[in-house]
């Protein structure tokens, strides 16, 4: 029996546990008793995190498409072909005709290396990852207002707050150990306000549950801020000392009376007033948000309003306060930190800044690096349609299920000249690839993940990868070598982190020997720095906090006679994203074995639909069959679908309309019709 202390591979909470192995096979999970978040507990996914690792579907050898079918190949053949064909596409169509998709499931070191490979070896800034789909609005919105696009406070702050305002986060299902912390806080007297029109578990414990219309967050937040100013609840000392542009914000709110906000949101005016008084009246108040805020065509505006609300009441920079976007993936914070983004190197250092570019050019030993920001992932499909993008290298992502408008995605991926997918299973995306590279999973490699509270934690190898599968970092280094680049020779992930620390001020003090027992929170600029539990304590990262007034805009596609329902999408508690791990974990897949759609009982009665009836759901993009779940979880006129299921894929319906600034798709609102199948 062997026990290996590691990090959970699912959500951004960053729980730690021991993987229990016997004779080279995983046989269980035991929670860390001393970890400040896990504290001896885990959620159902954590308890079952060993369950998919030895699944017979694991990829064990490289695959190369011959005569239309994927056939086993040697590493030598597969990697030589990857390099040869990527180069060939670039030679014929230009340097920026290829794109690299990194992964929020991969380690910091691997994200850093793929970013380095794209820029230093292939000379393109076309590198992005699935943060584009979840918190790109946060990165843009909070960078502008605070100077740093990350959770301002720590998870322990939930034990020290008077009011928690949760908006657009189903916390007990998507960040269960944070959700349970909120439930405990409520038991101990903290007051909870929930704004989400689904009747999520937290709503049952809330003193106030605001069920506002999908896409009306700006109106709701403006109404709340109007009341705060009108009733003299704003923290004028904080505003004067720590912020700028308040007058413009106040001006933008003058006509956003509770009555106007009520009309725009469907929430009673008195509830908007109550929410304002509860939040602003607290000595310490925290805002928690997630995809319900970010995944809109006005996601950045939503985030600007959240930031303004916190600054308006002085709820920044102290324990038990802050703006707390909960990052979805285990390492989506790290993927962003490592510069797997089209416009920045690691630590959010802009590629357009000549001095920074020069630093990376010299350190990486190359003659030049590209200066123009690359393509965001969500614009890649359209770029490919237009013939600008011809080749994609995708590491650990499954856009066939995770990206909006599946039909368009499929058509584009099928028509690329070259598609390479590096993954642990033959996902729906990998099945379309020309070359498939088998990767080690989280339990089979070393590295670090950065959780939602910016804590860099060690991931450890418990068992060997299956067959010939290799760690992503090893594959990337091998690719660099084969491409003629000698700047990626490392003894292991610890040495990669040492390079990251040298080049990345946020991670300057991060080193493996300092990460025991449970990690360090960035910013951590040098080896003597203890890490930073709370951001913006004395001053905002950008100096003064900036109020950014916004205009209320409607969602891009609203219901009409043909498509009378609002479809909103998300996840369930038991599955993770496109399900390639959880749908291969027996207990988790048993819990939610098939696609479903939540329909309000009033709508169901009108449509003659009963529980478990088969329905056809249609949008302007596609049609899917799915199963009815008749429930008051949703409000009338709104239906909800999870996007985990290849059969009954919610993203066959969703709309690839993007926020103009963050390029995040509007997953949370599109119009659909629902009909009962005979």
């Amino acid at each position, binding site marked *: 029996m062997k026990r290996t202390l590691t990090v959970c591979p699912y959500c951004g909470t960053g729980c730690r546990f021991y993987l229990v192995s016997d004779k080279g096979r995983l046989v269980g999970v035991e*929670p860390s008793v001393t970890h400040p978040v896990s504290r001896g507990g885990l959620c159902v996914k954590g308890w079952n995190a060993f369950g998919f690792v030895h699944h017979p579907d694991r990829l064990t050898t490289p695959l190369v498409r011959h005569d239309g079918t994927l056939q086993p190949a040697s590493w030598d053949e597969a990697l030589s072909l990857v390099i040869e064909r990527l180069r060939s596409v670039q030679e014929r169509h230009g340097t920026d005709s290829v794109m690299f998709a990194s992964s929020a499931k991969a380690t910091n070191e691997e994200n850093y290396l793929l970013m380095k490979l794209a820029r230093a070896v292939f000379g393109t800034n076309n590198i992005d990852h699935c943060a584009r789909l979840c918190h790109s609005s946060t990165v843009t919105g909070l960078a502008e207002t605070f100077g740093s696009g990350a959770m301002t406070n720590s998870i322990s702050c939930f034990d020290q707050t008077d009011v928690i305002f949760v908006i657009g986060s189903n916390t007990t299902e998507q960040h269960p150990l944070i959700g349970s912390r909120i439930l405990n806080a409520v038991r101990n007297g903290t007051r909870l306000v929930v704004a989400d029109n689904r009747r999520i578990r937290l709503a049952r414990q809330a003193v106030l549950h605001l069920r506002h219309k999908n896409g009306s967050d700006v109106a709701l937040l403006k109404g709340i801020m109007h009341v705060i100013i009108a009733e003299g609840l704003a923290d004028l000392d904080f505003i004067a000392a720590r912020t700028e542009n308040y007058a413009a914000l106040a001006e933008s709110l003058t006509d956003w009376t509770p009555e106007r906000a009520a009309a725009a949101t469907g929430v009673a005016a008195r509830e908007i007033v109550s929410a304002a008084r509860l939040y602003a009246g607290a000595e310490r108040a925290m805002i928690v948000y997630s995809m319900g805020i970010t995944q809109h065509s006005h996601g950045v505006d939503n985030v600007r309003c959240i930031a303004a609300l916190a600054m308006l009441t002085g709820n920044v920079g102290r324990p038990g306060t802050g703006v707390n976007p909960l990052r979805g993936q285990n390492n989506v914070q790290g993927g962003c930190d490592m510069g797997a983004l089209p416009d920045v190197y690691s630590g959010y250092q802009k590629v357009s800044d000549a001095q920074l570019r020069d630093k990376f050019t010299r350190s990486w030993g190359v003659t030049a690096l590209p200066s123009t920001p690359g393509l965001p992932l969500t614009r890649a499909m359209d770029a490919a349609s237009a013939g600008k993008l011809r080749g994609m290298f995708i590491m650990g992502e499954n856009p066939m299920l995770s990206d909006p408008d599946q039909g368009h995605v499929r058509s584009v991926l099928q028509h690329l000249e070259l598609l390479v997918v590096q993954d642990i299973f033959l996902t729906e995306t990998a099945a379309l690839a020309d070359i498939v590279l088998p990767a080690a999973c989280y339990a089979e490699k070393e590295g670090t993940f950065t959780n939602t509270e910016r804590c860099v934690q060690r991931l450890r190898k418990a068992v060997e990868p299956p067959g010939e599968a290799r760690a992503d970092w090893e594959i990337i280094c091998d690719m660099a070598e084969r491409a003629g680049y000698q700047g990626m020779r490392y003894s292991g992930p610890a040495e990669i982190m040492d390079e990251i620390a040298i080049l990345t001020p946020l991670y300057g003090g991060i080193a493996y020997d300092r990460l025991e027992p449970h990690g360090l929170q960035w910013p951590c600029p040098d080896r003597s720095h203890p890490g930073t539990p709370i951001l913006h304590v004395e001053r905002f990262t950008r100096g003064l906090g900036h109020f950014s007034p916004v205009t209320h805009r409607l969602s891009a596609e609203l219901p009409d006679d043909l498509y009378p329902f609002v479809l909103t999408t998300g996840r369930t508690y038991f599955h993770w994203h496109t399900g390639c791990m959880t749908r291969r974990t027996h207990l988790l897949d048993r819990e939610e074995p098939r696609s479903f759609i939540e329909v309000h009982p009033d709508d169901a009665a009108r449509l003659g639909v009963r529980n478990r009836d088969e329905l056809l759901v249609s949008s302007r993009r596609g049609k899917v069959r799915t199963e009815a779940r008749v429930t008051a979880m949703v409000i009338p006129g709104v239906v909800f679908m999870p996007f985990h299921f290849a059969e009954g894929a919610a993203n066959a319906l969703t709309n690839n309309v993007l926020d103009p600034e963050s390029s995040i798709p509007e997953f949370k609102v599109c119009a659909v019709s629902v009909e009962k199948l005979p």
Partner: protein
Amino acid sequence: MKVLTSDRLDQFFAALAETWEVRVPILLPDGTRVIGSADDGPRTLHGGAVLSKPTAAFFPQHATIFSAVEGTLQEPQAPERPLLVFGFTSRDLACLCFIDRFFADGLCDDIYFRQRQGAVVAALSGYCGTGGTLLLPAGGNCDLELFWDGDCWLLIAYSEAGKEIITDLPDSVPQKTLELFGQASEQLPDENEKLIKRASELLRSDRVPDSFWAEIGDRCIACTGCNLACPTCTCFGVQDWRSARQIERSRMWDSCMLDGFMRESSGHNPLGSEALRTRRRIHHKLAADFKKWGEISCFLCGRCDAVCPTGIGIVAIAGELVARFG
């Protein structure tokens, strides 16, 4: 009676490893204590019950039932050397007795007994609990008991295997040890025992309304930790993994807090709400098992209360239940 001083512990355990596959409480790098192999971390006999259940030595979270490789059936073998597991408290031993009886009832669970048969179980007791608090003497239910008096271990064998293990140790026992053992053995049941018995009475007399379970169910995030940490929970799920050459059937700990646990293939579910599942978990331990086996199947090991992220372990629930309904 035999006695073992701290300076002879290394020698004692080293000798045992020649005959047995020894499992013992160990300290992991972050301070978590588990029962594991001595190679995995320093031995830590002090500190009380470990969080992960000691019965996992015989009923692990995941176990292979059989493999069929190209048509040939293969079953896992019994361990090469029998298990010798240290670290059970008196409460853990009561749990072990309960599941020994459960797994032997009717169709004997051969996967469980493949590990359990021939294994030696050693209890820890005395003033070796958290911060030196008293762990109640086992007084049986095991092969061997190690009682800590503050200076040395008193070793009491209850079986031939236990006697054989300590046969070479010296016989002299300090008077203080014997006195402390006597005093500890006379300890009265604690408050939690009274509480759990009262909760059981209330449930059996149907004095707890459904609204109570709805409230508790609202606070359950379905992590399943209460079941997975409980030494008397014995439910498991079964999966088949199929590949071109092989089928592997295995089983893993399951949880009655999951909707799918009782869901029928039609979709109908007799435990289709959180309130019903929460009620069932507690009712099963405190009422149904009492009726079937004549005893409550919660022995107050404390693990479900320790792992539950929202504070609804069985003692916490019993506390709320008794406070409200008598």
